[in-house]
């Protein structure tokens, strides 16, 4: 509960900090604010309870997710240190929006009432629309923001419609097992379930609601691409899980096959689409679609394990994604073409010769995304496979496995390029904070690859 209050207040404070003479204070202050929010998150540890007329539910599980979200935000925002670039022309506003968006994400992982879910999704999404267009002079960024906004608004409308149908059928907005299901109102419940799923699957970029993903990922400034591919996804999947495992658990026969088809579609579109991408950000966008498919696999299994699998998967995915986008940010600012940073795959050509540290970070991130053992990504995939296996859905697993083999092909494109002998870059400067973040994400990926129970035992 406290992080919501803390972040709302510190977000406002950040806005006013922007008026001070010394602009440099905004960055350390924002990081400090996020750390305060992280500290306040643990006030409720081991003190589960309900807040705001039982509309929000706090327990240790939700606190773990708050911590994951806030720590991811800190890691991503760390890359903005020392950037004097366009997207930080107005640093105070962006840091404030990030803090506000975290409020939305926190509401999404701890809601007890669909109104709160809707508010959380909206707070997070509106913030993301703004951040996508953060680089005002980049026409691609503007296009991306508008696309994201229009399609996101439709998705929200559909979500709201679904909630209304749910209310019509049950007479309550509260999620929980006590909901009456079946009988005459089941038709409206089905519509409500389908529409709510569509609204939320849009946010996590699952096919066939993925069409915005590549353009938005490419157009947005890289730091916010990293933000939306990690935090929105984590929060979105937890929200999806909460809705499906509580209210709609009685409708499992209905949505189960739907999710299975969506998994197959997401995996196919994500992985096959990524193969031919030349832009690293588009590649990561398609990879994000395919990872949405993998995370949906966990929802097919029994619900006792699914939350742990989703948590583990989102953590390893977040770590690897931050590494990958971080390397892209650090390297791409060395190569400006036509006033824009260069973000094609061949940017990484010869990176290993040039800067072994960055190349190692990139390679480990890619191995983890591809799910090779010794990295956390392997266990992430393993856990979701196991969950899906417990439901006996072997055709989906075989499909997922085939697609993982394809994934290796495109994840290795940057790896192979970085290993090539010729280099197109001069020396690359990394500031110490970025180096520190890379060390954390890479080390975390490896440690989780060898000792996965560190995280699993939290659940």
């Amino acid at each position: 509960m406290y992080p919501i209050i803390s972040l709302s207040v510190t977000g406002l404070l950040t806005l006013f900090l922007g008026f001070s003479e010394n602009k440099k204070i905004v960055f350390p202050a924002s990081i400090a604010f996020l750390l305060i929010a992280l500290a306040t998150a643990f006030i409720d540890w081991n003190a589960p309870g309900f807040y705001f007329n039982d509309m929000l539910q706090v327990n240790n599980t939700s606190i773990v997710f708050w911590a994951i979200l806030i720590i991811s935000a800190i890691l991503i925002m760390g890359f903005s240190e020392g950037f004097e670039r366009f997207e930080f022309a107005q640093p105070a506003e962006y840091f404030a929006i990030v803090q506000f968006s975290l409020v939305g994400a926190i509401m999404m992982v701890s809601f007890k009432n669909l109104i709160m879910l809707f508010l959380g999704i909206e707070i997070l999404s509106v913030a993301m629309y703004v951040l996508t267009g953060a680089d005002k002079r980049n026409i691609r960024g503007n296009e991306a923001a508008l696309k994201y906004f229009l399609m996101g608004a439709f998705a929200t409308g559909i979500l709201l419609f679904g909630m209304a149908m749910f209310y019509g059928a049950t007479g309550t907005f509260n999620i929980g097992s006590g909901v009456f299901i079946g009988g005459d109102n089941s038709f409206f419940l089905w519509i409500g379930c389908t529409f709510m799923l569509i609204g939320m699957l849009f946010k996590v970029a699952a096919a066939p609601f993925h069409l915005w993903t590549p353009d938005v990922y490419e157009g947005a400034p890289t730091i916010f691409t990293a933000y939306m591919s990690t935090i929105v996804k984590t929060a979105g999947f937890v929200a999806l899980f909460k809705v499906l495992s509580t209210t709609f658990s009685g409708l499992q026969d209905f949505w189960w096959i739907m999710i299975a088809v969506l998994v197959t579609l997401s995996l196919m579109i994500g992985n096959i689409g990524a193969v031919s991408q030349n832009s690293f950000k588009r590649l990561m966008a398609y990879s994000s679609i395919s990872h949405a498919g993998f995370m949906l696999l966990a929802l097919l299994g029994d619900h006792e394990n699914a939350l742990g699998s989703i948590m583990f998967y989102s953590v390893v995915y977040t770590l690897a994604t931050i590494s990958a986008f971080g390397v892209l940010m650090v390297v791409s600012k060395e190569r400006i073409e036509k006033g824009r940073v260069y973000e094609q795959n061949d940017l990484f050509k010869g990176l290993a010769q040039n800067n072994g540290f960055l190349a190692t970070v990139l390679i480990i991130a890619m191995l983890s995304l591809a799910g090779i053992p010794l990295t956390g990504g392997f266990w992430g995939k393993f856990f979701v496979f196991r969950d899906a296996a417990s439901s006996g859905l072997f055709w989906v697993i075989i499909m997922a496995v085939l697609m993982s083999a394809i994934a290796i092909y495109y994840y290795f494109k940057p790896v192979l390029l970085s290993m090539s002998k010729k280099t197109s870059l001069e020396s690359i400067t990394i500031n110490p904070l970025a180096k520190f973040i890379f060390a954390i994400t890479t080390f975390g990926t490896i440690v989780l690859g060898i000792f996965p129970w560190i995280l699993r035992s939290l659940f």
Partner: protein
Amino acid sequence: MISNLPQDFSPILVQFLLALGFVIFTIIITHVLGPRLKSKQKEDPFECGIESEGDARTPLSVRYFLIAILFVLFDVEIIFMYPWAVNFKSLGWFGFIEMLTFVAFLMAGFYYIVKKGVLDWERD
């Protein structure tokens, strides 16, 4: 008790069909009944008899939009004030403090806007 059987929603369906029917009916009937005359004068945009010039899509100052959106923002806040005023007595001090907090947030936003110079019409 909320009645939530499907047939209870049937008035909505009837209204929906009526609305749709009316729209389709009007669209078709205007085409059938309306006389059709075409000339240069008739297709010209009409403005108080003055001859039109230039493109219709002239850029407006973004300040108009800013002011408009700010008006909406601050105007809509009234919907919180009104129910509070009606229930002032029953809500008591709790309601008063809640409203003070709300107004404080609102004023923070207002102060921010002023500081940003959004209301500064002359600034360039």
